[in-house]
């Protein structure tokens, strides 16, 4: 499916390209079919996060913690 000519114009402007009317139409058609082909990547699906470790169990192993964070000595000097 061709992409919208207004999108072609916006992309051409971003790319600093002046297009002829013929190129505008041709690119709308060709980019449409190339992008359609590229959309096959979506068959692979996204990574899905699994169940994380319970926060308390992780913090229990740390030498020091406060309010749900690991706690360390100051690293930025205060004047």
């Amino acid at each position: 499916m061709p992409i919208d000519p207004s999108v072609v114009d916006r992309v051409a402007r971003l790319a600093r390209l002046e297009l002829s009317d013929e190129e505008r139409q041709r690119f709308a058609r060709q980019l449409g079919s190339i992008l359609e082909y590229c959309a096959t990547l979506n068959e692979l699906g996204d990574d899905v996060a699994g169940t994380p470790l319970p926060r308390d169990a992780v913090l229990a192993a740390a030498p020091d913690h406060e309010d749900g964070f690991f706690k360390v000595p100051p690293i930025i000097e205060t004047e």
Partner: protein
Amino acid sequence: MHVDREGALRAAREWDARYAGGGALPPLAGLPVAVKDIICTAGMPTTCGSRILAGWVPPYDATVVSRLKDAGAVIVGKTNLDEFAMGSSTENSGFGPTRNPWDPERVPGGSSGGSAAAVAAGMIPLALGTDTGGSIRQPAGFTSIVGMKPTYGRVSRYGLVAFASSLDQVGPMARTVADAALLLHVIAGRDPKDSTSVDIPVDDYPGTLPRGARGLRIGIAREAFGQGLQGDVGEAVQAAAAHLGGLGAVLTEVSLPSIPYALPTYYLLATSEASANLARYDGVQYGLRVPTDDLFTMYTRTRRQGFGSEVKRRIMLGTYALSAGYYEGFFLKAQRVRTLIRREFLQALDAVDLVLMPVSPTVPFRLGEKVDDPLQMYLADIYTIPVNLAGLPGISVPCGFSNGLPIGLQLIGKPFDEATVLRAAYAYEQDTDWHTRRPPVVGQTHSQAVAEVHKRDRATPRPAPKRGAQTRRRSSRKSKKARTRK
């Protein structure tokens, strides 16, 4: 694209004199080498096959070129390519196409088609190509020569005009594996001027060639022998695998299930990088400027006039894939799939030393056959592109003919293990005679070859060419004439 007659003769005379004087000579002393015209050569025009850079003379040598000179090579000139290395047929050159020495009606492959044709036709023994998605291996396979893409980071990219910086790599093209090994050995190694070049010792490629294929574990990539592969191409590659088995290699099958996703991944990533890399051609620092009253129009009009169709199409695609609203769905997604593909290859290479597959799904196609259908043209690189995405070394070695047209065998190795790739390729080459065959143009004078093309043109009835096609053919003759000055 350019022949440095005076410079080459001068350098050759110097090496002759050093030879006559006796004493040690560097490895490429006096050997003529041609350089793809996207690699900077000080004092010699570098066009990238683009009108936008016509006449530009770089003020410096690429690291690979200075290494060649230090090794004694005589740089004879610059070879044709698809504009900015974007193409699979060398038809996208802004200066006219290159033809295949095995059949002048057909393409030599691309984008390093000029280097491939020059080596295959016997014009020079050695050439440099560059490979972003198959641009060394595919034309090598299409012209029955040897071409190798080294591991990403093995060879310096300093002075290689950037197309897709995370994929581009310079490599050797030659008539034999031994010649390719010699050339690679000269150009490989860390370069402080390229932060992506890696400080891993360079193996003695020529020295390790004779070790044979015995005991090497070779995995035949199952997914590369399916739909879209020309029957006799697949048979020739399978026969080559069996031949390696006969030489003592242990054959197994490996699975790379994400290979079908490599092509869309590549066309999103390579074009995205290209859209940024080619932003520099705007009429300010070098090359063409179309004068106008305001700066913005100077940029857009210069680029309109200077770039060819394929380059514009890829800049558009890359700009789109990187633009707000599409970045996550296209660019980022493609980056993730790239990781997946690399992981699959590395996993396969845990169990085997080499992965084997065809170089291209078909034999060389006819000029004009695919120019109007970008997706069909992209499919010519379906087996070479995954190797760039994974950053691995790959070689193309002649492994047969179909009706007189060359077929290439591809061997892919572990990162920085070029030595094993070359060694297996050498064992196969030395036990077959494909590499000894020469295209019909060899032995003809240039004018005989041109006359033959014209005779064929008259003899073959063809549909009336479209206007665009006619312009292309005319400019090709012009560029041929320019080459005869050699």
